Every structure is written in C-alpha cells, then in structure tokens.
C-alpha cells in the first residue's frame, strides 16, 4: 500500500478482554516497530522486528503483551486481559531497512473501560 495502515483506528475493550491490533507496513519494508503513546506523552518503544524475527522486545511492559510478524509483512500486537493502564495510542512504523526513514501509521487508540 501507499503507507502504513493500522486497524482498527479505535478500539474500546472491557477490562479483562483480549485485543489484537493490526499493522500493514509498506510493502518491502524490512524493519517494523511498535510504540505505545500515552495521552500527552511521547511514543515509548515496545518492540522491533527485522523481517519475521523479533529482535528486540525489551519495551513490552508485561507478559500480557505479545507481538508477531510471522511472514515478515503484517504484524499483530496482542494484549491479553487488558487493564485500564493499557489505554493509549499504539503506533506502528516501518522502514525499508535499518537507519532509513521510518513511516508511521495513524495508530490505534485503545480505551479500556
């Protein structure tokens, strides 16, 4: 596609519910990032993929968070047993390769009630 696409744009989940957030990177982009952005804050790193390999997951806040990119293109961020503190915008970004410009999607706003 022309840009990074994320779906859904908005998600409301009841506390304890599992959610899955999808990211479609730009075709051919090797690098893919997930970031979490709390209201009024800067994005915080969650995880990084190079093709299908998850090379860095140091930013995942707990074992309730899980990300995958099985075929090296589309990625899914899954949050199990959501809690109120998980409410944030989740941003996905992709780049052609390391140290080239990253393009961001419009994010998914997750609200846990």
């Amino acid at each position, binding site marked *: 596609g022309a840009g990074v696409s994320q779906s859904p744009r908005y998600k409301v989940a009841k506390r304890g519910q599992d959610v899955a957030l999808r990211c479609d990177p730009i075709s051919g982009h090797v690098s893919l990032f997930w970031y979490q952005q709390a209201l009024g804050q800067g*994005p915080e790193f969650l995880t990084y993929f190079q093709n299908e390999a998850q090379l860095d997951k140091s930013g995942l806040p707990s074992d309730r968070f899980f990300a995958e990119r099985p075929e090296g293109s589309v990625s899914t961020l899954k949050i199990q047993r959501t809690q109120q503190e998980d409410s944030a915008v989740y941003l996905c970004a992709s780049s052609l390769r390391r140290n080239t410009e990253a393009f961001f999607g419009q994010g998914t706003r997750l609200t846990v009630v």
Partner: protein
Amino acid sequence: AQTVTQSQPEMSVQEAETVTLSCTYDTSESNYYLFWYKQPPSRQMILVIRQEAYKQQNATENRFSVNFQKAAKSFSLKISDSQLGDTAMYFCAFMRGDLSGTYKYIFGTGTRLKVLA
C-alpha cells in the same frame, strides 16, 4: 542509556513569524541520528527533518532548519514563516547509528506548537 529532553511543553507563534523548539539529548554514542517529527491531530507522525551526527552542516528542509550543537548535545528546530498548518505536536527523537545492537527511536515528551492567525 540515551535520553531526549524537550523542555517546552507548549509554544505559540504568530503566522509568518519564526519559532525555535528546543531539544537536548544525552548519549555516549558517537554515531547517531537525530530527528524532528510532527504529529498533527490525525496522530500520524511525519518526519520533518533528520540530522546525521557525523555531519557538521546543519540540515535544512524548506522552512525548517536545525541548530545541531554536538558538543552541547543540543538539537533545536527553527520554523520560519510559520503557517497555520504547522500547528501540531513536535517530537525530537534519537537513534543509534551502529548497525548492531539496539535499533529504536527514543522520543522526547513533545512540544505542542500553536500557530496563531
């Protein structure tokens, strides 16, 4: 660990005037990149300008330019001839340049810029 600090939570500027947004960072790396990203209400982060640390010349991109002071670890963004469409959150970001090890953007907390008509 690297950190990025933006000390101006909010700024405003009159249309057509010039404004400077501040950013400082802390790192022990010698090879790195610095970025300014713009985030309008649509939430999509858009790259404004990028600076390689090994380049002494300050990057410019049309109305946007940076003042990169490597020794002082300062990286400010100057917006000339401000336009209403420049109204957005601006984030300063750091990335290591080493091709091995950690690869991620480290963002500051942002500056909310409002351009006034």
